[in-house]
């Protein structure tokens, strides 16, 4: 039973922002190859979204819209950049989600979406575990280095790692082989 999502509701809007910002930036980056342009594009889309009065049926509907909107905004910014135009007006009256079909684009969207799901699972780990997880598997620190950085005992680091893995296993049950590989790397 999914409630419709209205962007005029502040909490919905904020939740939407926090849930999707990074993945959308990642996607935008794959089009524009420049972090600041990528972030500008995504932020522009969200600003535009504030005025979006129609509601979305569900997260799928919302995300598809966002990916398309970010894509279109990226193209606009790239063109402007090529023409050496410094300011690209954001016309709030024009719809941003006109369909532009491109196989490459779609696979980029799917890629970003897959990574978003994984990142979300990591984010939902309890704080300490998440920190240890990040240091261990993303920053690639040794147990000793983590212990030092977080001021924890070596045993605690091991326990937190173990728990993070357990949690992720639970949370990402639905992408098991992926996780399995991931986890193998971890252990």
């Amino acid at each position, binding site marked *: 039973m999914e409630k419709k999502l209205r962007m005029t509701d*502040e*909490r919905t*809007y*904020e*939740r939407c*922002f*926090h*849930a999707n*910002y*990074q*993945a959308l*930036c*990642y996607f935008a980056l794959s089009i524009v190859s420049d*972090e600041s342009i990528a*972030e500008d594009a995504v*932020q522009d889309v*969200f*600003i535009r979204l*504030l005025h979006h009065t129609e509601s979305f049926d569900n997260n*799928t509907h919302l*995300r*598809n819209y966002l*990916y*398309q909107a970010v894509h279109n905004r990226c193209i606009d910014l790239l063109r402007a950049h090529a023409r050496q135009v410094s300011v690209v007006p954001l016309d709030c009256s024009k719809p941003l989600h006109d*369909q532009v*079909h491109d*196989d*490459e684009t*779609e*696979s980029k*969207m*799917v*890629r*970003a*979406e*897959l*990574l*978003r*799901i*994984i*990142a979300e699972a*990591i*984010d*939902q780990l*309890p*704080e300490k575990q998440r920190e240890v997880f*990040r240091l261990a*598997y*993303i920053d690639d620190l040794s147990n000793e280095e983590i212990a030092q950085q977080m001021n924890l005992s070596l045993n605690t680091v091991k*326990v937190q790692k*173990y728990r993070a893995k357990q949690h992720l296993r639970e949370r990402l049950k*639905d*992408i*098991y*082989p*992926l996780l399995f*590989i*991931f986890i*193998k*790397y971890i252990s």
Partner: protein
Amino acid sequence: MSNPTILAERLMAYLKGELSGEELREIEERLSKDAELRQLVDDMRDKAYITREISKLQSFDVEKAWKNVASHDEKKANLSSPIAHRPSHFYRIAAAIALLIVGGALVWYMQYTKVTPPEISPEVLAAMQQSQQSGHVGANIENGGTKSETQGVRDAHQTEKDDEGNVTTHSPIPAAQDQFLLPPSISTEELLHAKRITTFHDKEFWLTLDDGTLVHLNYNTRVIYPEKFGRKTREVILDGEAYFMVAKDRSRPFIVHTPQGDVKVYGTEFYISTKADDTNNSSTTITLIKGSVGVTPSGGTEQRMLPGQQCSIINAQCSISATDIEPYVAWNQGVFVFEDCTLERLMNVLSQWYGYQVVFKDDKARRALFTGELDKYSSFRPVLEAISSVTDINFTIKENTIIIQK
């Protein structure tokens, strides 16, 4: 119409091997036609790739971006005061989850008021029945220290013939009242309204609490518990030995108070013993079988435990080590499991359980080592016979005493 979200979902299912039939054919066909997607699937199977890309994804500063966007529209002034967020750059929590973590345990708990009784395995049920039938169940139940009733099997089941043909009967031996300690954290006021159950010297008991939690008490054990648990917590007092199978109720943590400290239950099965160990130093030992508990020694801080660990509270300190949980699980299921156990120790357990005295006429016999399993609910005679047959140790039973000699 482009639907990357659904496609991503399908690919996840594909990667995990969950697709079959029509759906699987569809994806495979799609992949065979789309080189980009094929590459994507390969990348997603590359662990190093995932770590790199997640890193990239999380390098975008959400907080800063939010401030930017929120301040952009004066009309929506509320947006500039977001719901509590973590200060860290790399991770953001969705608002709902932030509430969860930021001291939000109660909020989380409030959403889950359903109580699920513990899963009792068929082995445990069988053990409960056997125990009852073989006359090993017996305890005194008192209400707030006033009226007392005895539960369990009558004496008649406890007759045994000794070697000279004399019949002896065992009366259930009530545990000595003054030997039980009370944890410092409980007020006498609360005790007056609670129920108190004490197992006999040589009997066990299964107690079902208000929420469905099943507590398997060993001999000489006292549990003080309320007839009905309160709204915020489920608390009991234990002195002795018991195996807990706790009902799931996320709105109310389950806490066991012992003379040495408290055990807070986050999960399901564990064993607690407050008895003095062999060296007669007062200590409480908690063995975690399943789930999760936190142990707070009196005056100390909470330490969490993992299944397969044992925590000993000695002098208000927690000492956690890995242990074999099999003997405890087995005990709960009606079997004594012992490994490299001295005959002295073994006889201690058996004598207590079966209510016999033990006399060693030969000191060497004390130190003989045994490994094996014993059914708690059958007679111990076959065991003694078994031991005799493989060693040169002899057992003689005279009235209530087992005499051991070589």
